[in-house]
């Protein structure tokens, strides 16, 4: 079970004039397949949308505002997995 595909974060611009939004994550061996998978998983292949993918491990995230995190392993992991940031309402329009 060692050879796991890396995790990618997927950002989609649903309509022209809007910025890309984080819609979710997926696993893929490389960027091209990640983009294709993103079309299949998150857009059901709508034409004309723009997709960004970035490996989760390459995302730098700010520290949470309040307390010092006590659960260290979880903390270091979530730097790598900032999944599902911010979707709800607009998702339906994609």
């Amino acid at each position, binding site marked *: *079970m060692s*050879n*796991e*595909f890396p*995790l990618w974060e997927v950002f989609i611009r649903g309509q022209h004039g809007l910025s890309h939004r984080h819609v*979710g*994550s*997926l*696993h893929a*061996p*490389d960027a091209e*397949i990640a983009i294709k998978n993103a079309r299949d*998983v998150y857009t059901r292949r709508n034409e004309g949308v723009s997709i960004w993918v970035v490996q989760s491990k390459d995302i730098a*995230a700010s*520290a*949470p505002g*309040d*307390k010092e*995190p*006590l*659960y260290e*392993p*979880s*903390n270091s*992991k*979530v*730097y790598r*997995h*900032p*999944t*599902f940031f911010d*979707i*709800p309402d607009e*998702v*339906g329009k994609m």
Partner: protein
Amino acid sequence: MYAQEVKSTGQGVKSLEEMEPDERAFQEKINAEIKIEPKDWMPEGYRKTLIRQISQHAHSEIVGQLPEGNWITRAPTLERKAILLAKVQDEAGHGLYLYCAAETLGISRDQMTEQLLSGKAKYSSIFNYPTLTWADIGAIGWLVDGAAIMNQVPLQRCSFGPYSRAMIRVCKEESFHQRQGYDIMMKLCDGTPEQKEMAQDALNRWWEPSLMMFGPPDGDSVHSAQSMAWGIKQNTNDELRQKFVDETVPQAEYLGLTVPDPDVKWNEDRGHYDFGELNWNEFYDVLKGNGPCNKERLDARRKAWDDGEWFRDGLMAHAKKREARKMAAE
């Protein structure tokens, strides 16, 4: 509203005053309905409970593909084939969203897969029953998806952000699942006597397992109080089960089918349908692995995983080659 009975990892009930500052801040956020995000401080028990619940939910979606997938190649019309395929595909998508949500808690999808395939992790017992006729596809959509939706709608308000957001997406996509099942049932009940009999037989077999999808009665459910305090669970098992019965009995009547429980009766005083005792021994037996299809389901998942290993390794090998070539060119 959950303020005074937070059970932290098995040490009994704690009041806000008894909590350490971190835990109190965490609980106050939940009480104020502010979402907990992956990097926020959280009690270890909360994290573990969520990993268990979300991964189990994800496994259920993936294993849940199998009984319905069993009928894709035999669906009776092109339209039914496409709808069923789209539905089973959605379940794969829902599994994917849920695995990703669990991954934010510091477990990888491969680790969760390993837990499923080794038999360590559980999935919903309902998927250990066989789909014997086309009517089972209708009954699953109508009853099993109906029960699942009832469970999932409140989870959209779950205190953990990634889980809540995954559930919002799942619920949005799932709205057609129950309807397509009921539509199959309507067609069968309007059809030939043989078709109607097929529909009744499916209802007979799926009714009780569907009611058990809400989990054991509240008195026997070990995790309920704690999960409710943590905002992971919004309703008790029995509340949801009653709601399901109340909605489903009239739907069965509309189809002209008989719910296979002689004790089902409208209770004017309660404003609910009464229903009979469920056979919980069977539930626990299936949970233990003795259901009609436990072995087949796990075998199918193991086969997919094992047979796919060369594919996954081959793609990673190519990705590494490509990376190396790119480095060499630079």
